[in-house]
């Protein structure tokens, strides 16, 4: 550990720079400053709780938060405000350890105007209440940024009703059902043991009445979801699983009430309570949610809230992006996102469009060029003139497509509903049949067996098997870093037959590129010189080549000039080094290859070029090979076709390749596949895939860091487990088989029960045993098999 110096604050290696301060070592000035701030305020406990917990603060915080002075923005961001206090909830993606929690909850020591602060670790949120008369929101955010916690504030947070109330009704329903279920069971115990002394006495009636009272909240509140859903289905003339459930619930309830009031029996209220209690547990189990993930994000959560506008008299001020009008001049600084379509007026634009169009390398733009919204400026500040308003820009128009407006859930009919259609019809048939058969013999037995059929056929085990299987599968996949939006995604994933991949960022790694050098071999000295030149340039290609050369030393440069969009010229000890585009180095273009190359000339003699190729994710070839045997695989990309030959070796010749496609083209392509009857899975990563992800039957978004932005999708796949994708899909497919097997088990219980019901022999005790028994068997079966299957598939 002592060989290399580790920053006391952030734990990074102090390779480039080493600052010693207060007997501690720091990797950069930023880290040192944070330490100083904390040290002065007696907050060094931060470093005691976990070693090197810090985050290196960003360097350019100066004007970044100017927009927080804007009262309109403030109003929309604050959760609460009175004369004295404001409360705000900030999203701090940097929160990662217990030291973070400690420091952020002790913010009041840094500034006395902060009243209190509370961290929600899983959501990475910080709720701060502060005195806004003495501490402006901007100052507060800058304070956080100065200690390394840079809040993410984007357009998404400005939505009118951002306070989404979490729906607790299911938990209330479960709590009340559990309470009533427990008490009814206790009171029904004497009945189970056949204690005649109690049966005869007034106790029996008293217990009956108490059970009745206890069952009211269950039937009126806890079961309301099932009753409503069944009612809706009847109104829309469809059949769903809730209809037989509701029939069972009502039959149980009214027959029990009748038996208790007429003193003919003790009723089945215990079974009723157990049934609803178990089914609610199933529902909650299926509702696996991931706090930090959002599957509904659109461009709004990627775009900034405000941008800098330059007024006619050259004053820079911050403005709300939706207030931008055509003709406004805006200023975009390094690493800022261009919020609207605009024309470049001045400055050297070097736009990273990888997220919007899928193009892998940044593009140089000249004055007067049109720049689309969503691109990120790399390099110095540029001035642009707005030509389209926010909601009409090239990228945001994608969200006007109908794929985004139609409801999501309706398009899929799950396996449960399909089976319950037949199930309901058969049950009603048997119930009416037994009613008709007994009617001639004895009306009382007829009614008894009719209700008994409805009770025993109540598909509680059936209704439990899918939620428990899906809930368990969701958890297992989540543990493997494959996060699904909800259970219906599993069913849809099990049905796909076509997979469409995006290229940039999906099968390639955006952070890593392969650089190869072709030409006269370079001497060690030349390498050092080239590296020293490249060091001066902030162009992304320069950085890639610099990393590739990996020179250990650095030499003084005598002169250096960067010609944007062309290349670099530098002299070192009278040696002239030129690096850049083919046209710049050779003055002509020899081959028309679309591959990205950086050419090299030393002292006017041409040496060769560095070729930059996308680097594919590890395991890509084996994944494609495995998936190819099950599915049809295609590729669609917004990038050019320079990698076509390379891709063919991965995907094989029978795959379809589409290049230079706009986001709308991608959406249309998925649509055309679906019209041919294919069930498609789209795998993408950027905003340019958002339309295709939404339109496809299942859209998976790949993300290097699941906390950062990913477009709206059905599932988020952590890039580190990309190689497990085939296993995930096949696991979902086999989980459907588990459900079918569990259906068979629950049907056999139903058939046994039905025999007793039709013959009129159903006793309350028998029902109270059979119904939970069948439910428990099914739950245990699906949980065990889905776990075993996961183990078998090495998940």
């Amino acid at each position, binding site marked *: 550990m002592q060989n290399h110096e580790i920053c006391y604050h952030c734990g990074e290696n102090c390779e480039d720079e080493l600052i010693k301060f207060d007997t501690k070592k720091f990797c950069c000035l930023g880290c040192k400053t944070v330490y100083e701030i904390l040290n002065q305020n*007696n907050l*060094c*406990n931060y470093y*005691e*709780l976990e070693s090197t917990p810090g985050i290196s603060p960003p360097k350019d915080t100066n004007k970044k938060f100017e927009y927080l002075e804007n009262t309109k923005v403030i109003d929309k961001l604050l959760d609460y405000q009175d004369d004295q206090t404001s409360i705000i909830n900030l999203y701090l993606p940097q929160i990662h350890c*217990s030291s973070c*929690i*400690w420091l952020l*909850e002790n913010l009041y020591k840094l500034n006395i105007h902060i009243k209190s602060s*509370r*961290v*929600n*670790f*899983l*959501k990475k949120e910080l709720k701060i209440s502060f005195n806004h008369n003495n501490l402006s929101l901007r100052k507060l955010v800058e304070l956080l940024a100065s200690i390394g916690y840079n809040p993410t504030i984007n357009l998404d947070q400005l939505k009118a009703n951002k306070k989404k109330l*979490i729906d*607790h009704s299911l*938990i*209330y329903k479960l*709590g*009340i059902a559990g*309470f009533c279920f*427990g*008490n009814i069971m206790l*009171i029904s115990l004497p009945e189970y043991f056949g204690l005649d002394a109690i049966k005869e006495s007034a*106790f029996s009636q*008293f217990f009956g009445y*108490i059970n009745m009272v206890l069952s009211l909240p269950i039937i009126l509140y806890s079961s309301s979801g099932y009753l409503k859903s069944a009612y809706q289905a009847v109104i829309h003339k469809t059949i769903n699983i809730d209809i037989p459930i509701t029939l069972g619930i009502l039959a149980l309830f009214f027959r029990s009430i009748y038996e208790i009031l007429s003193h003919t029996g003790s009723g089945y209220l215990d079974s009723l309570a157990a049934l609803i209690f178990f089914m609610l547990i199933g529902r909650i189990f299926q509702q696996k949610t991931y706090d930090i993930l959002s599957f509904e994000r659109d461009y709004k959560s990627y775009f900034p809230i405000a941008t800098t506008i330059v007024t006619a008299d050259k004053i820079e001020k911050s403005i709300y992006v939706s207030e931008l009008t055509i003709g406004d001049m805006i200023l975009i600084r390094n690493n800022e996102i261009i919020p609207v379509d605009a024309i470049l007026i001045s400055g050297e634009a070097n736009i990273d469009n990888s997220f919007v169009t899928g193009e892998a390398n940044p593009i140089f733009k000249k004055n007067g060029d049109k720049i689309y919204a969503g691109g990120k400026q790399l390099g110095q500040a540029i001035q642009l003139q707005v030509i389209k308003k926010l909601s009409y820009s090239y990228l945001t128009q994608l969200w006007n497509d109908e794929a985004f407006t139609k409801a999501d859930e309706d398009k899929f009919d799950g396996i449960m509903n399909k089976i319950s259609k037949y199930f309901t019809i058969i049950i009603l048939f048997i119930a009416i049949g037994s009613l008709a058969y007994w009617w001639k013999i004895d009306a009382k037995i007829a009614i008894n067996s009719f209700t008994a059929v409805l009770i025993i056929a109540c598909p509680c085990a059936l209704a439990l098997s899918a939620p428990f299987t899906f809930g368990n599968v969701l958890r297992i996949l989540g543990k493997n870093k494959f996060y699904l939006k909800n259970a219906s995604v599993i069913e849809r994933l099990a049905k796909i037959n076509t997979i469409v991949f995006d290229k940039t960022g999906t099968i390639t790694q955006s952070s890593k590129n392969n650089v190869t050098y072709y030409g006269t071999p370079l001497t060690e000295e030349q390498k050092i010189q080239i590296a020293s030149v490249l060091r001066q340039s902030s162009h992304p290609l320069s950085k890639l080549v610099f990393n590739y050369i990996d020179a250990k030393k650095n030499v003084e440069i005598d002169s250096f000039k960067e010609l944007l969009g062309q290349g670099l010229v530098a002299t070192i000890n009278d040696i002239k080094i030129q690096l850049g585009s083919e046209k710049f180095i050779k003055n002509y273009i020899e081959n028309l290859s679309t591959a990205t190359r950086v050419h090299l000339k030393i002292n006017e003699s041409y040496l060769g070029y560095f070729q930059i190729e996308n680097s594919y994710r590890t395991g890509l070839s084996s994944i494609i090979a495995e998936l190819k045997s099950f599915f049809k695989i295609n590729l669609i990309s917004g990038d050019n076709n320079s990698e076509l030959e390379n891709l063919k070796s991965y995907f094989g010749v029978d795959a379809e390749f589409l290049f230079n496609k706009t986001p709308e083209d991608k959406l249309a392509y998925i649509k055309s596949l679906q019209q041919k009857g294919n069930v498609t899975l789209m795998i993408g990563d950027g905003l340019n895939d958002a339309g295709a992800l939404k339109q496809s039957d299942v859209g998976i978004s790949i993300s290097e860091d699941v906390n950062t932005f990913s477009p709206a999708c059905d599932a988020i796949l952590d890039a580190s487990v990309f190689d497990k994708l085939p296993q995930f899909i096949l696991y979902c497919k086999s989980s459907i088989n588990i459900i079918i097997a569990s259906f068979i088990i629950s049907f056999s219980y139903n058939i046994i029960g039905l025999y007793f019901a039709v013959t009129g022999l159903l006793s309350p005790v028998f029902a109270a045993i059979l119904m939970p028994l069948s439910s428990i068997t099914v739950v245990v079966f699906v949980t065990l098999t889905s776990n075993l299957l996961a183990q078998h598939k090495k998940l």
Partner: protein
Amino acid sequence: MSVLFILIIVSLIVASGFLIAFIWSVKSGQYEDGYTPSVRMLFDNENIVEDKEIKTER
């Protein structure tokens, strides 16, 4: 035996007290963040830093 009538009713009232407590706990947001409180309760009070500094000096 007839005391059972009262006992059962009393026990139900006590039990519903717990039900109300449960509903209150959900409403007050105790189930929204299941992780942070577990860390927060382990933070010591202020004097810890000084203590540790004394230790390292020795």
